[in-house]
C-alpha cells in the first residue's frame, strides 16, 4: 500500500529532513508515527501527499509511483487519501454539512449523492445532529470530527492524520483516536503522526519512531519510547 525506498528530502541549504528512509505499510494497517519536533514526520506526510518531491529515493502509494507521477494525475491520486490536521482547517463561513460536502464537490459528486452520503458520514463521526452548526459553535473535539468526516467522505484507501489530537484535551483525544481506530477497522489504512505517549501506549498499534530524519525504531503493537 505505502512503500518508501531509501527516500531523502533536503530543503534548501539544510540538513536532510528525511534521510534515506525505507518503509512499508500494508493495506489496512494502523501506524503511529512518533518522534520529536523536526524529526521528519510532517515532511513524510507531505511527501505522501505529493505536496513536495523527494530529493532521492522512490515512493509508491496504492500502486502509483509518485516520483514519475504527472501533475495532472495528482488530483486523482489524492482522492484515495484523506488528510486530517492538528488545526482542523475547517472553513469558518461554511456550516458542518458544507465543510464535509466541499470534499465531494471537489471530486465532482452529484448533489443527490452528496445529500445522501454527507449525513451518513456525519452519523459515523457522531455529529448527525449538528450539521447546520458553524465550526465556531463546536468544541475542539467536534471540529476534529468534522475534519475527519471531510477526510473520509470520499471513502479514501488511506487516512493521514498529522497530530490530530494536538489541540484536544485527553478525553477528546481518546475519542478521536477511537474514531480513527473504527475507520481503520472498516478497512482504511491509517497513519497517525502524534506526540501523545498515553494514546500510543493505550492503543498498542505499530509504532514507527523517527529521529533526525531517519527511522530509529519500528515495532508491531508497541508503545511510545523516546527516541
Amino acid at each position, binding site marked *: 500500500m505505502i512503500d518508501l525506498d531509501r527516500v531523502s528530502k533536503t530543503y534548501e541549504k539544510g540538513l536532510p529532513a528525511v534521510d534515506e528512509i525505507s518503509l512499508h505499510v500494508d493495506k489496512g494497517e494502523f501506524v503511529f508515527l512518533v518522534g520529536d519536533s523536526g524529526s521528519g514526520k510532517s515532511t513524510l506526510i507531505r511527501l505522501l*501527499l505529493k505536496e513536495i518531491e523527494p530529493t532521492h529515493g522512490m515512493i509508491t502509494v496504492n500502486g502509483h509511483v509518485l516520483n514519475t507521477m504527472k501533475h495532472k494525475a495528482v*488530483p*486523482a*491520486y*489524492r*482522492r484515495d*487519501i*484523506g*488528510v486530517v490536521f492538528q488545526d482542523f*482547517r475547517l*472553513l469558518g463561513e461554511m456550516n458542518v454539512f458544507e465543510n464535509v460536502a*466541499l*470534499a465531494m*464537490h*471537489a*471530486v*465532482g*459528486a*452529484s*448533489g443527490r449523492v*452528496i445529500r445522501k452520503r454527507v449525513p451518513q458520514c456525519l452519523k459515523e463521526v457522531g455529529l448527525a445532529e449538528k450539521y447546520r452548526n458553524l465550526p465556531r459553535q463546536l468544541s475542539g473535539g467536534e471540529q476534529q470530527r468534522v475534519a475527519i468526516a*471531510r*477526510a473520509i467522505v*470520499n471513502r479514501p484507501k488511506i487516512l493521514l492524520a498529522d497530530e490530530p489530537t494536538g489541540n484536544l484535551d485527553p478525553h477528546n483525544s481518546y475519542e478521536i483516536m477511537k474514531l480513527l481506530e473504527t475507520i481503520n477497522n472498516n478497512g482504511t489504512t491509517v497513519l497517525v503522526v502524534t506526540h501523545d505517549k498515553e494514546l500510543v501506549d493505550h492503543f498498542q498499534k505499530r509504532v514507527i519512531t523517527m529521529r533526525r530524519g531517519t527511522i530509529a525504531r519500528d515495532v508491531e503493537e508497541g508503545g511510545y519510547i523516546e527516541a
Partner: protein
Amino acid sequence: MRLSSLGYNIKQGIKNIARNKMFSIASIATMTACIFLFGVFFSIIMNVNAVRTDLEERVGVTVFFEEGTTDARMQEIGNEIKNLDHVTEVTFTSADEAWKIYQKDYFKNNPELAEGFKDNPIANSASYTVLVDKIENQDAVVHQIQTIQNVRQVNQSSGAAKTLRDFNRIFTYISIGVIIILLIVATILISNTVNVGITVRKDEIAIMKWIGATDHFVRMPFIVEGLLLGLIGSLLPLVILYFSYGWLVRTFLSRFNGLADMGQVLLNVGQLFRYLAPVGIILGVGIGLIGAASTVRKHLEV
C-alpha cells in the same frame, strides 16, 4: 465538467462577488463606465456612418454632352454608362427639364424675369445623373465616363461625404484610444478583485487541493466571478443606453434645428442595439474573462 460541479462553481463565483463587495462594486462601476462610454462612442460612429452613407447615396455625378449630340447618341451614352461597374442608377434630364428646374430654383420669387427668355438659355444642358454604389468608386467611374465619346463635362460633388468620412475616421481613432485605456483600467480592476478573492480563499483552495480537486475545479469559481463582473458591468450601461438613446437623439436634434432632416437618417434604438448589445456584452464578458484568467494563472498555484 459535470453539471453539478458547474452549478457549484457558479454558486461559489457569486459568493466570491458577495464576499469582496467593495472590490466587486468598484469593478462593476468601472466596467459600467467603460461600456457606457463605448456605447456612446459606438452610437456616434454608427450614426455618423449612417448619415455619410445616406449622403453618399444621394451624391451623384452629372454628365453633360458636346454641342450637337443627337438624342440617339445621348441614349447610347446612357446605355454605356449603365453598363459600367459600380453604377447603380442613371437618370436623364433633358435641357427643357433642366431649364424648368433652373427657373424654379432661381426665379421662384420673380417668375416674370424668366419670361424674358424666349428660347431655352441652357439648351446645351441635357445631362445624366449617375449614382454609384460607394463613394470610393466615384473617381474611377468619372474617369471612365470622361473617356466616352461626345461627353463634354463630368461634374462630381462628393465633398460633404468625404468630409464626413474623414471626420468619422478621426473620431473612430480617438474613440478606440479612449476605449482601450478604459478597458485596460477595467481589466486591472477585475484582476485585483479576483486576486483578493484568491487571497481570501487561500485556505479553501489548499483544502480542495488536498482532497483531490482538479486545477480546473479550483480555478473555475474565479473565472465565473470575472465573467459575472464583466456581464453585470456590460448589462447595466446597455440598459441605461437603451432607455436614454431616444431622448438623447431628440435632444440633439432639437438643439440643432438645421439637423432636423437627419431624424430619418439616424438609427433608431432597435437598429443600434442590433450591433451594440452583442458587441457590448462580448466586450464586458471578454474583459472579465481575461482579467480573471490572467490573475488565476499568475496568483493561483494549483
